[in-house]
């Protein structure tokens, strides 16, 4: 930005927009599958936000006279054992998945920045101790840990968001730690120290802004994994309470009870889950390849 001086601030905005536009053009040209996935994700976010207006029925609305009916004009995807409209439940399920995926990822980013960033930045003995803790945490099979904690704190949306967020944050702190350590060895960081910046000032001003893009990309790739964990917990009956429509819960023991009579009950929630996770992964991979050359591995 050699021409930055003297340019009125109004001109900066269109310049930024054109960079954003250029990014989207690159996305469509170089990663068409990523772009299509992005559109599907945008549609599901739209559906999640306007679920109340889009769903033909409420997700808890009972139609006991229409139990286990197949797909029809009245109920596009059929009904479940209590006569609840499956399409409406899927639509509200999208809202739950998106909400959990985004909030959990945000919490994870904050926690891994605190643990990984500080541990990697300080180094030395404290890093050694913190990393043994992270080692142990990573060895603890995630599903067992999540199930154990959920069985104690009980089913619920805030519980599951916190549990998934904290657990993902600790596990993911390794990525951040490596990124911070890499920057600590770079010339501009040494220069920042040499001109007399204090330790914490260089951490906040020079290290964090440079690792954040890496981190945000790394964690957006993990949103699909979060939604999958939520569904696994729901499937095993330790996810969300029955008054919330979530895709995993629809496939759980209670959900499976009527599946032989009504196989569509098993088909659609799983399909919705697979498509969402697939698109999130594809979009994440494409964004990473385009935005961060450091992570580009020639795969995907």
């Amino acid at each position, binding site marked *: 930005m050699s021409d930055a001086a003297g340019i009125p601030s109004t001109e900066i905005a269109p310049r930024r927009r054109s960079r954003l536009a250029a990014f989207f053009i690159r996305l469509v040209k170089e990663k068409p599958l990523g772009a299509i996935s992005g559109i599907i994700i945008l549609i599901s976010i739209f559906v999640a936000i306007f679920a109340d207006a889009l769903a033909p029925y409420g997700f808890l609305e009972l139609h006991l006279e229409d139990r286990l009916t197949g797909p029809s004009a009245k109920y596009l995807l059929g009904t479940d054992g209590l006569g609840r409209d499956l399409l409406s439940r899927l639509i509200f399920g999208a809202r739950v998945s998106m909400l959990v995926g985004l909030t959990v990822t945000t919490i994870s980013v904050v926690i891994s920045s605190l643990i990984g960033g500080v541990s990697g930045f300080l180094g030395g003995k404290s890093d050694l101790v913190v990393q043994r803790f992270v080692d142990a945490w990573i*060895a*603890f099979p995630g599903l067992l840990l999540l199930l154990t*904690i959920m069985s*104690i704190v009980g089913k619920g949306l805030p519980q599951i968001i916190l549990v998934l967020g904290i657990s993902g944050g600790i596990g993911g702190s390794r990525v951040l730690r490596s990124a911070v350590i890499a920057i600590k060895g770079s010339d501009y960081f040494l220069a920042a120290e040499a001109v007399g910046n204090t330790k914490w000032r260089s951490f906040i001003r020079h290290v964090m802004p440079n690792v954040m893009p890496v981190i945000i990309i790394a964690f957006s790739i993990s949103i699909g994994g979060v939604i999958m964990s939520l569904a*696994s917990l729901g499937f095993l009956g330790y996810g969300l309470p029955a008054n919330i429509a979530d895709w995993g819960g629809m496939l759980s023991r209670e959900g499976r009870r009527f599946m032989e009579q009504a*196989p569509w009950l098993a088909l659609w929630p799983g399909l919705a889950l*697979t498509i969402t996770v697939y698109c999130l992964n594809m979009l994440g991979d494409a964004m990473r390849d385009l935005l961060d050359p450091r992570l580009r591995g020639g795969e995907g």
Partner: protein
Amino acid sequence: MRAYMIRRLLLIIPTLFILTIIVFLAVRFIPGDLIDLMVGELEGWYAIDIDREALERMLGLDVPVHVQYGRWIGVLPTPDPFSMESRFNGLLQGTLGESLIGGWSIEERILGRLPVTFELGFLAIVIGLVIALPVGIYSAIRQDTATDYVGRTAAIVGMATPNFWLAIMVMLYPAIWWGWSPSVEYIPLVEDPLGNLGMFIIPSLILGTASAAGTMRLTRTMMLEVLRQDYIRTAWSKGLNERVVIMRHAIKNALIPIVTLIGMQLPMLVGGAVIMEEIFVLPGIGRLFLDALNDRDYPVIQGVNLFLSTVVLLTILLTDMIYPYLDPRVRYT
């Protein structure tokens, strides 16, 4: 190198120690209303009156946390909840304790269930490698061809498909279409090896394909990296044919990182095994865990957690230790 090995081995001690603390604390904050609930359930099980304090004693919750931990580890004596006689009875004495509900020894039950979970995991790893390696290698040597795209797309679809959903579909649709469903009665390996394999093959295939997706992507990346190196160009320019270049020169170096991946995939595999044992009614450690969760049998939950995490930790240690021998270019200091 030797110094690194010793350091790596010594570092496992604090990690194991921290692991016991995490496993211990994970079941330590049982809220009061849960205790009340358990009192009711236990009265049903034992058909005797149990008051709150007795249950807290049985769970060891009547003393401060550090004393509870000391007892579990075996550095402090544990009083018997009924006779009140104290003795050292913890991890250091080689015991994980007893089930709250059944009274049986947890370590014996875990070891009894281990063959099932081990067979499932072993088959899944083998199937995963058998699928992933050829596809990954082929995908790399024919980069950007239709086959490459098909392989990569299949891998991403495989990663996105929840294994429990795949399992439900396998249980459901063949039953509807052809009236066929997988057997849900456990057949021991020694009685009927083929019948036993028949039971394990579907859950292992589902688990194996899930881990194959990640392995295939890594294999492809590593192959692409190796194929760009000078010694491969030398091999080509010597006039060696493709078979020799790929099989003799490239594969050896490309496959080394896969060893690390197996260790890293193990925690996920354990989670997958829990789900498969639940759906296909296999009497393994995963089912033991889910039953214990359902019964709120916290000593068992704690024991299974510690056992499986230790297995994962030691596997990761093992892969780290053999890595420098597989790849002499890696020199740790």
